[in-house]
């Protein structure tokens, strides 16, 4: 059969997903950039005197280099120091929201796909409904009404709206996976539904869930920054979105305080880009055809 060569490639790739992933250039480069950004932020964040985060700790509107690495804001804060707080916070939003969304989605998708029947019908409609509803609208609705929430609450809210897409795709995956021979063999070996899902199916979803997680991560950081720019962000904690919010509030673009708004923007883009590379890496590992092209 024509799929034989490809299948052969898949056969070989079962050497281990992690092995395969760490060999993928996009995955490693993306992951390295991401981790480097996060670690630098975390470590330098720990070394910085917390009082230096306060407004007025530095002269206002200094361009980069003059005493501070990335310049200062109109509120007299160091942009670099803000970044050390903003990157981990934004990453935290992404992590929590993506985890909530992916776990919720995976659960719903699994249940819907594996058990089928009426449960499936109801869940399917629910998934379809939430997929076609502009979730940002609801996010704004909730964020506007629960003003002043912190990073974690924010992430939870975003995560609560991030499940439909993974649910739909997990469901499709489970539908096809559960017809696979090894699932039947597992049933004959006496495994029950939950064991099959966890032991037999989960590993096969791994790459896919990984890719989805990264995607949800990106979407969550994007949503957070969007809400923040509208002034609905976590106001007491610094995130990349809040940095942009403050920069816009002080019309940094117009005042040509480019370091102020460009720093979070570039960080955000680097974050997205690195995560997207990781995402492509996951994709390529689970779909070897994509790999042959550069």
């Amino acid at each position, binding site marked *: 059969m024509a799929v034989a060569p490809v*299948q052969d490639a*898949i*056969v*070989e790739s*079962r*050497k281990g997903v992690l092995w395969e992933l760490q060999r993928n250039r996009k995955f490693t480069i993306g992951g390295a950039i991401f981790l480097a950004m996060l670690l630098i932020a975390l470590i330098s964040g720990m070394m910085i005197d917390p009082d230096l985060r306060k407004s007025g700790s530095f002269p206002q509107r200094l361009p980069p280099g003059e005493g501070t690495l990335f310049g200062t804001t109109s509120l007299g804060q160091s942009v670099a120091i803000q970044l050390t707080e903003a990157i981990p916070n934004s990453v935290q939003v992404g992590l929590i929201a993506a985890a909530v969304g992916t776990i919720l989605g995976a659960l719903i998708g699994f249940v819907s796909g594996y058990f089928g029947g009426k449960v499936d019908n109801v869940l399917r409609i629910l998934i379809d409904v939430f997929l076609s509803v502009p979730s940002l609208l609801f996010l704004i609705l909730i964020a506007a009404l629960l003003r002043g929430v912190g990073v974690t609450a924010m992430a939870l809210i975003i995560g609560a709206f991030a499940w439909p897409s993974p649910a739909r795709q997990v469901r499709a995956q489970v539908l096809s996976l559960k017809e*696979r*021979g*090894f699932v*039947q*063999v*597992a*049933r*004959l*070996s*006496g*495994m029950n539904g939950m064991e099959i899902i966890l032991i*037999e199916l989960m*590993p*096969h979803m791994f790459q896919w869930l990984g890719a989805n997680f990264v995607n949800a991560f990106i979407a969550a950081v994007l949503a957070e920054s969007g809400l923040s720019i509208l002034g609905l962000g976590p106001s007491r904690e610094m995130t990349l979105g809040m940095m942009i919010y403050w920069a816009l509030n002080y019309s940094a673009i117009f005042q040509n305080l480019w370091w102020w708004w460009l720093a979070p923007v570039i960080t955000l883009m680097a974050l997205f880009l690195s995560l997207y590379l990781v995402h492509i890496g996951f994709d390529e590992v689970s779909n070897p055809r994509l790999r042959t092209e550069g």
Partner: protein
Amino acid sequence: MTALLEADDITKIFGSGVGRRIETVALRDFSFRIETTRPLITGVVGESGSGKSTMARLLLGLEEPTKGAVRYRGADLRHLSNTQRAAFRREVQAVFQDPFESFNSFYKVDHMLETPIRKFKLAASKGEAHQLILNALGAVGLRPEETLGRFPHQLSGGQRQRVMVARALLLNPKLIVADEPVSMIDASLRATVLTALRTLRDEFGISLIYITHDLTTAFQICDDIIVLYRGYVAEVGDVTKVVKDPKHPYTQLLVSSIPRPDPDRQWSEEPEPSALAGTANPDKGCLFAARCPHAFEPCLRAIPQLYRTDARRAATCYLHQDAPTLALDQMDELLMAASGETEPQVTR
């Protein structure tokens, strides 16, 4: 005496398309019985889509019949207690078609062998479990050092399929359902798996339902054979009789279509369908009528019954309507009768 496994007039209908409106009768009015008295290999052959796999899945309890019931030691599979179910799983096992698909590629081969031991508590200790595995592998002619500790893709197709057989063997079953166990395996490896299967009957006294579309291998290893056509039994009986002297026109077509690996024995021409065949109604009458070279008027009216053309065989064809009919649920009697007779095995 209750049979080990009994299919009582089962029918399976699949719905597909929007709202499951398009119905496929995958298996109709099928009855069958496996006793524990004497190990037998029963072949099930038929063209693609004739319901072979469906039958297997029904017997294994992986699918529920639309009508009728499958019983394990007299108990309906749908209502087994937990202990009954565990016993059923142990006594009735399976080997599937695709030796790669049957393995979870994330785990070593050992996973496949250890799981049933763990789930059915077959061993008291690790060492005992290991011994069980070694025995099972030995029984199918595999050396542990070239199987255990490896990933599925590191084994050849034949080895993988034999591990599957060993897995079934571990549970010390009474019956193994093998759905096309060799169709995905290279010619040079096929014989090893078939030999392993035959060993099950001869050395371990395990009955086997051997599902295949390859009449040649069925002929080689089976005692009895059931020929399915579009979900119903076309012909059933002793394998040698069925192959050498098919009574149902479909079986005849099947046998004559087999390409002989001999350049000097060319295919005969496919017989022309009869003049009446064109008027056959797909919803009524014999399902084969539309392709049948012998179709005549009665064939268009109703599905024929099983006619017992001789002691060890019956065919669902009006050509034999003079022979006594055999109720579907008596089919197993015929098979048992066939096996009961001590006919010398054809050996080389």
